[in-house]
């Protein structure tokens, strides 16, 4: 008897990396048949990232010009090839249209990384409304952290429909960290090769949401840091550095493998990007962040991230403090990753099968005490 077919829908490199461990776990558990479905804006990078995990997309639906068109295309696919359940990840790209299309056809929706919220009900933009709607059309909500699970309960999602699994991004990092290919980006290859005999420490700066004035201050701070620390390489993501130091390079959007290698080699991350902060943590790298990210408070509570002010001296001192003391740096991540224990994908796969009546639901990820949350 054929196994029930599960469609894992994604469209970006990040989604591919977070879905891949779930597909692998489903294959290992052999209770359902996972089919990865490329339905987002970056089918090529989606496929490339899956390739790192020895997986391929079994189905592809071109992303529509808008969500309505993507829903239409997925509906057409599922009218003839109806999966037993659909898995979506996060709240960007194809997640909402896929969940809506599945709900329309009464196909159960399993939502990975569910419950992330900024807490601002009146927030402008569509991120928060779309997150809440995605929750409402989902059947099973797999939360990466206790705060996310609590957000769902606050929105009256039945407790029995919520499972704390952890984030599969950590599982992905653990799966590939020892077999990452060499850098494809020539600038990164040159920078890191130059320091290969006595590897330089690496500071990754990702300030994609920071305005020009502050960016100038950051660039100036980076120049002072490289002058003070001769063993420091700096990669500035999404922006060009200033000056002519060969130890500072800029990088545009990176393939998942390059980004993963970069973070695996990083000593420290300075960022205003929640995704980068979270990805850094999957490789055990602490982050200095420009401001609180209200949908990602867990690293702050766990001590893995620290807010650093915009003044050049403050930034310089915060980075220098961690460069000067490996112990201080390591202590930030000593309590582990608040987003998981490396078993999220196994729980997600088991929960999906259980939802379809194949075996029991897994135990939730053991939740550690979280600062700021009373028990």
């Amino acid at each position, binding site marked *: 008897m054929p196994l029930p077919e599960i469609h894992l829908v994604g469209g970006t490199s990040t989604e591919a990396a977070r879905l891949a461990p779930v597909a692998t776990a489903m294959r290992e558990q052999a209770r359902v048949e996972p089919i990865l479905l490329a339905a987002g804006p970056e089918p090529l990078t989606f496929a490339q990232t899956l390739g790192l995990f020895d997986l391929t997309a079994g189905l592809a639906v071109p992303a529509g010009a*808008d*969500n*309505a*068109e993507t*829903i*239409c295309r997925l*509906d057409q696919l599922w009218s003839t090839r109806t999966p037993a359940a659909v898995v979506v990840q996060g709240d960007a790209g194809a997640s909402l249209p896929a969940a*809506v299309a599945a*709900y*329309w056809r009464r196909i159960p929706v399993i939502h990975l990384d569910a419950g992330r919220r900024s807490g601002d*009900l*009146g927030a402008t933009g569509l991120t928060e*409304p779309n997150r*809440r*709607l995605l929750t*409402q*059309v989902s059947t099973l909500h797999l939360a990466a952290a206790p705060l996310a699970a609590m957000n769902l309960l606050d*929105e*009256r999602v039945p407790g029995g429909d919520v499972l704390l699994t952890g984030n599969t991004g950590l599982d992905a990092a653990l799966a590939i960290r020892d077999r990452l290919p060499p850098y494809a980006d020539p600038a990164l290859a040159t920078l890191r090769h130059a320091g290969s005999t006595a590897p330089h420490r690496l500071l990754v700066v990702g300030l994609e949401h920071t305005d020009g004035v502050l960016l100038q201050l950051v660039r100036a701070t980076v120049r002072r840091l490289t002058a003070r620390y001769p063993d420091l390489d700096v990669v500035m993501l999404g922006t060009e550095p200033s000056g002519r130091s060969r130890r500072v390079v800029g990088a545009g959007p990176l393939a998942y493998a390059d980004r993963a290698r970069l973070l695996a080699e990083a000593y420290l991350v300075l960022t205003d990007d929640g995704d980068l902060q979270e990805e850094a943590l999957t490789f055990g790298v602490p982050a200095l962040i420009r401001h609180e990210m209200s949908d990602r408070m867990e690293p702050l509570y766990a001590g893995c991230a620290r807010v650093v002010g915009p003044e050049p001296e403050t930034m310089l001192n915060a980075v220098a403090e961690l460069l000067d003391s490996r112990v201080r740096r390591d202590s930030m991540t000593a309590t582990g990753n608040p987003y998981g224990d490396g078993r999220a994908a196994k729980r997600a796969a088991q929960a999906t099968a259980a939802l379809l009546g194949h075996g029991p639901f897994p135990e939730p990820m053991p939740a550690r005490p979280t600062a700021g949350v009373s028990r």
Partner: protein
Amino acid sequence: MDVAAFWTRSWTNDDRPAVRKLLAPDVEVEWNLDAAVDDEELVRILRKIAVFADSVSVVARTEAEDGAALVYELAAPFGTARMIEFLAVADGRITEVRQVYDVTATDRFFPGLYER
């Protein structure tokens, strides 16, 4: 006749006779609000939304052979809530209405919506 468009125009303009006429006698209704629902209750709640909201607009629409999915933006005086509506249509009448509200925003910006 574009039944879905006529339906939207009817309920957002509080045209209850037209709304009732569009619903098949055995229409099935579901929603995710914390209240029981049938066709009478659906008509009552849609009327309350139409009256209370500053505006109701369709921000996305997907067609299928036997119906449509519509995403509404329900703008109230102090904020906006979204709702997705799935319609099944047969012989020019609506045979199924499934509504998914952003319940958190709906409860906040449309207080007492489904209280009797």
